[in-house]
């Protein structure tokens, strides 16, 4: 009997050890399955969100076309240009005048030392018109108007205004998103022109306080250095950046569900994603420009 008991004890221990091993193996496999599942789920959700955003962008574009045809909600568009374009003008003016003046002063001081005094004009055009002008304007508008738009729409969602529009048969995209989209795009292009006005001419006025440059000579060289391609790519960058800012801002505004605490979170997300997309689009357009010219 004692021998039989000992054998049973050993068998029990062996069976317990086997059970632990099996449980450990199953647990490991479950963890691996969970990781794969989560990764796949995230990829699918990201893909879904991407296609949803593309569909949302397509809806905005389509509604914009009808908006321009029917000229409805013009007042919203006007106010959007006022808030985004006119009110951002002082900031844009200060930045562009400072940047242009620095380029002219440094260029006039340094470039003649290398026998390349005339190079200051292509540098001005490259920096003010083609590269930094659109992207700096976009950053300012994204930080200033992008947050305002996403916050405003988010608060409208929280206060059930969007539901009220829908229940009254008003499409919130065509009534809320499209005027903001068009307003930001137009404002961006106009502000880019103003950035060039202040950056190229305003900075000249500042520079004349320090150095002496003939205005006619300055404008003549500037117009020789400027090309139609520069203007086109600059406006294209502004329009793309404006579209990105407005679409991202309205998209994240509509992403707010019920709580008011979601509003600032979505506003921050809209700015972050907006900056990244602006930089990527700017780089893409710059590459396209160099391939084209």
């Amino acid at each position, binding site marked *: 009997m004692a021998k039989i008991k000992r054998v049973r004890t050993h068998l029990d221990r062996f069976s317990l050890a086997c059970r632990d091993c099996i449980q450990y193996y199953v647990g490991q496999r479950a963890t691996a399955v969970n990781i794969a599942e989560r990764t796949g789920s995230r990829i699918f959700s990201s893909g879904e969100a991407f296609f949803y955003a593309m569909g949302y962008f397509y809806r905005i574009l389509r509604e914009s076309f009808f908006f321009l045809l029917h000229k409805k909600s013009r007042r919203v568009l*006007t106010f959007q*240009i*006022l808030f985004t374009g*006119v009110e951002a003008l002082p900031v844009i003016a200060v930045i562009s005048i400072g940047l242009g003046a620095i380029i002219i002063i440094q260029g006039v001081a340094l470039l003649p030392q290398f026998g390349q005094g005339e190079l200051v004009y292509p540098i001005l055009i490259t920096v003010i018109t083609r590269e930094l002008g659109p992207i700096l304007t976009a950053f300012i508008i994204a930080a200033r108007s992008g947050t305002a738009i996403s916050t405003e729409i988010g608060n409208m969602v929280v206060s059930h205004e969007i539901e009220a529009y829908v229940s009254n048969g008003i499409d919130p995209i065509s009534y809320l998103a499209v005027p903001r989209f068009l307003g930001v795009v137009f404002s961006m292009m106009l502000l880019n*022109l*103003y950035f060039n006005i202040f950056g190229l001419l305003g900075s000249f006025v500042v520079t004349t306080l320090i150095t002496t440059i003939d205005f006619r000579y300055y404008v003549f060289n500037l*117009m*020789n250095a400027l090309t*139609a391609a520069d*203007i086109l790519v600059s406006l294209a960058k502004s329009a793309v950046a404006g579209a990105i800012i407005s679409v991202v801002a309205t998209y994240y505004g509509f992403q707010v569900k019920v709580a008011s605490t979601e509003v600032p979170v979505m506003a921050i997300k809209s700015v972050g994603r907006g900056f990244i997309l602006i930089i990527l689009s700017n780089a893409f357009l710059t590459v396209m420009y160099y391939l084209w010219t």
Partner: protein
Amino acid sequence: MKFRIRFAQQVVGVFVLIALVFGVVVLVAMGANQRWFARNYEYYSIFPTGEGLSVGMSVRFKGFAIGRVTEVTLAEEDLVRVDFYVEDTYIDRILPNSVMQLVTSPIGIGGGLVFHQGIGTGEHLEEHSLIPAINSAEGQRIVAAGLATVPSAGDDITRIIAQVEPLLASVNTLLVSVDGTVNHINKALAGDQSEPLGLTLAQVNTLLEEVEATLVAARQEAVDILASVAVIAGNFEATSAELRDPTGLVPRLLDADGSITTFLNDNNALYNEVEAMLRSINATLDEVNELALFVNSTQPQIAGILEESREAIILGQDVLEGVSNAPIIRRGITPEAPQPSTFQSHRDAQF
């Protein structure tokens, strides 16, 4: 209500209008500067090589840029086709029998595509027509016939000469300056100047006079020194004559009857005496050596005797002390008759 809210439409309208006006003005200015709206007339030419030709290089006529090269391509028969345009301002200059010349300079000055106008009047050459190169058969025929105004080929040389001319002028100025300096020095040397150079020359003259006086004095002293040296030389000469004299000191010393010879020829008497003395000294030194060896060998025995004697004296002293302190001994020590020792010191030994 705020002003900009109340007049939002107007504010936005002005905002948009200013930007649009600026855009339009820039476009117009740019177009005017870059001749967007002007017409260009296109022509082409054929060259044997594309060396020195590039797209964008200007076409020049009498130093003015009248157009630009738009394309350089390799045409049939390995010839190079150059397409260029001429601005509408200069289209009247493009007459028939005109030729093109590619001017290249080995020193990089004066190169370019140059247009030489054909001689004649009338309409300009039709667009898209060929303007032959000056070194082609057609071009050479036109030049040989005098149908084109081709300036002499010395243009580059003329330009180089023009650059050399200022250099020559500078050299001339330098020569005039050198001439003036030489005249100045001549006057100074002649003593006609009271300027620094003249004064320096006068000081040099005074210095030379002082040097001359010093040399005269030194010459007198040198004569005295030479006289003393002559006396010393005379003495040396007398001594030398004495030594050379056959009846002098040296022969007397070396004479056969002289002292040295006599001393050396005594049948070894003196030598033998000296040798005997040396032998005697040598024997004495051997004995001294033997004595030293003996003393050295007996030194341990002497040391042992001295040590035993010292111990015996110490024992005797103790005995005497005990005897003197013992109360039993009353009658002292029995007197003994003295007996002389058989041992004598080395000093008393007989050799």
